[in-house]
């Protein structure tokens, strides 16, 4: 799994020079790889619903009424609010999501903090230290 995640990280390092079709391919490859790394035994919080495969990194905090999967990767030290629903989505390390997020086919960059409630997105890369939806950077891929 690690190599797949590193590939993604490298391809989005320079936000201004992201090659979206390339990103789409490595993202899809990484999603497919999750099924070989299903791991949900270690998290902090209420009991979410999991549809396998789901990979949870270390020290992941999960709010109430959360639905994860299928094909979800969550990196280390992430925090998900209440009513979050993720499918076919990769969340890199140290990310914080607010309440009531529905993400499908999304990628959230390392250290992003989406400090607001209610977001529904598909097929995009999300980046930022955002206190509202308006100052969130979004790149469709």
């Amino acid at each position, binding site marked *: 799994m690690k190599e797949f995640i590193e590939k993604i990280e490298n391809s989005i390092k320079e936000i201004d020079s992201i090659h979206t079709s390339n990103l789409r391919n490595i993202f899809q490859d990484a999603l497919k790889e999750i099924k070989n790394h299903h791991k949900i035994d270690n998290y902090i919080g209420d009991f979410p*619903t999991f549809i396998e495969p789901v990979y949870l990194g270390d020290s992941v905090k999960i709010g109430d009424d959360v639905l994860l999967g299928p094909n979800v990767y969550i990196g280390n030290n992430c925090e998900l609010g209440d009513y979050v629903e993720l499918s076919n989505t990769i969340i890199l390390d140290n990310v914080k999501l607010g309440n009531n997020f529905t993400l499908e086919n999304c990628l959230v960059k390392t250290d992003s903090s989406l400090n607001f409630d209610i977001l529904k997105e598909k097929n995009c890369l999300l980046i930022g230290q955002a206190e509202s939806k308006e100052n969130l950077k979004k790149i469709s891929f």
Partner: protein
Amino acid sequence: MSDKEEREIGRIQELESTNLAREEIRDLVIETKKKVERDNDILAERINKEFVKNNIKSFDIVGSIGAGKTALLEKICEQISSKHRTLVICGDITTRVDADRIEKHNVETVQINTGRECALNAYHINQIIKNKDLFNYDVIFVENVGNLICPSEFILGTDKRITVVSITEGEWVIEKHPMLFKMSDIAIINKIDLLERLGTDIDKMISNAKNYNPKIEVITTSAKTGENINKLIEIMGL
């Protein structure tokens, strides 16, 4: 609607008792409950269309905790896996125990861990099948979370629903749980290998099921000895 109200509605929905709603939000709670149930049914209908379009035979296996749903599925898959490309979706509060047991019989499995929810719903099934190429399957089984109450609230879009109980639960178990039998196509009374020891009144169980639903097919089985498993497979049309 404020955040607090929304949470309150969520909580009441989980408890499934409209009576607990404060006067001011009672209407809202009732409306929301109805909408959720309707949305589930619409989605289930769409799922069934997909199954039918792809020539897939589909079954939702519900039943009490430990009645033998997984054991029966193991026996069925053992028999049919060489003939039918089979997917089994297993619902449990936690663990992958059931999926692991069934996977040994050469079928593909997906485990859903529902956490706090006591039944699978059509949304769960839809999330799985929209990520699969249905062209690759002939048969789909869903093993629902074990209990005889919650699954009656949510249909899943399968062609048939099968309810499993076992004779260790006592001869009143069917009489006490009318809802599921009313909406099932097949009732399985399992663990009949233990009949001599337990002396359960099976005739009463059969007639209770028939009373609630005259169209239901009732079959007695043992997943342990394999008794009537072939007959069950035949009734299922596999």
